[in-house]
């Protein structure tokens, strides 16, 4: 029983590290572009 739980937590843990690492670059790139678009829209509307 313990082994199943350990495997469960290990998968989630290493998956989380990989996911956080991926998000930093992916969301970083995409959200950066969205900020540019957002400020452009706000400038247009003001």
């Amino acid at each position, binding site marked *: *029983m*313990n082994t199943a*739980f*350990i495997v469960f*937590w*290990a998968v*989630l*843990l290493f*998956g*989380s*590290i990989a*996911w*956080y*690492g991926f*998000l*930093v670059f992916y*969301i*970083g790139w*995409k*959200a*950066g572009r*969205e*900020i540019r*678009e*957002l*400020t452009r*829209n*706000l*400038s247009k*509307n*003001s």
Partner: protein
Amino acid sequence: MTLTALDWIIIALYLTGCLAAGLWMRRFVRGVEDFAIAGREMDVNLGIASLAATELGLVTIMYTAQLGYEKGFAGAMIGVIMCAAIWLVGRTGFVIGPLRTAGVMTIPQLFERRFGSRARWLAGLFVVLGGLLNMGIFLRLGGEFLVYATGIPPGWLEWVMTALLGLVLLYTALGGMLSVLVTDFLQFIVMGIGIVVTSVLVILHIGWGNLIDGLSLAWSTTEAAAAAGTAATVTTEAAAGLKAHPYNPFHASSFGWGYLLWQFAFQIAVATTWQTQISRVLAARDADTAKRMYRRTSFYFVGRFLLPALWGAAAFVWFAQNGGLPADLTSITAMPHYLSIVLPMGVMGVVVAAMLAAEMSTDSGYMLTWATVIYNDLVHPCLKKPLSPKGQLLLTRGLVLAIAVFLLFYGLWYELPGNAWDYLAVTGNIYLASVFTLLVAGLYWPRANATGAGAALILGAVGPIAFLVLGKSYNIAPEVAGASSFGLAALGMIVGSLVTPPPPPSAVARQTAETSTQPAAA
């Protein structure tokens, strides 16, 4: 002091960049709508960055690490439940879909359309009360991390907290949600790098096999001592501290079924009701953007609990193998002290900057959210003559300042009745249970009326307030206080609505029309 000149340079660069970006956004604020919900221009990836940054504060890292220290990996089960709840809400659009479509700025505003102005005001009051009490311990726990991780003298804690809050206050009060979104983005990046680097270094330092063996040994030692009816066989003070099963959250020594079931209801309520999360839903371009933002952010919440829990569990094993926890440390301060040992020069600067990022993004998001609710739902309905746009902005900024002052003073004197997570969950419950009940009934039950709403709001707050005031004296379990508030709120809504006349068909019809079609302004 464990920080070097290089670490301080990294921290100073980060703080300057954040402040400059926050102040730069001020130029785009034209009115309260821009200030509170960024003119509803936020797209999905920026929403993910902002939601993730706001909901992962330094306080989160402290209490999740404490759960890891006390309960091992099982302490991260709440993150798994949170992930499931957010994904489920994002998949179905339960509550958040109609809420975004309604085009409101806050949840209580929706209640006015369905249940009348009194329900809006009362809901606003509970939202603010629960939210501010919840936020009250953020600064204290954040300050404790900085003291123990950087080695600055404990006497500086209040001044460090004040300076940090002053910085956040400056860009939040001037740029509102627009500044919060941009600084959240920077903080998301810095925080992500810091969390990944720290997790890898912690695993390398403690060793994965050693961590698992250490936790298993501590638990089997405790079990053996319990079986023998004595603590004599417990080898170290730290090993005696692992009173919960480190891997199985359903075990009676860990959370147990009752607590986890309450947490599932609680997390569904958080995902649909917690105003700081909902403000991102309301700032989204449309309901579909909000749902995608939820689905894509959901797995982030596993790491939100599990990675700091790893640091806490590693601190536990390290202290257990090195003579036990020093007398001046506790389960909550063990992790930052351990990190100050593990992290090398330069990396420590990045990690402290990341933790400052976590603290700042959470403080700014929360201050703005509660100020918006106070203005929108408590002050605005009482005004006979509406304020000018300039006056509205000035008042909302003044409220942000007032919340900052409250935070400083409350954070300094309040003593936690239990562990930090229980405090946060129960204070959040003051409004979560009742507002969740009102939202679900208001959106999906045509028979719900104003009397039921009033009864649900008041009854839902009874359990959590009893825990905060009497929890220590009468040993009230947090899950009892929390679960009872859901039951009482639902009971109040059902009985209150059924024993009084049904709502006028026009109120139900108007809300149905507003929540099922996209308003032109949105």
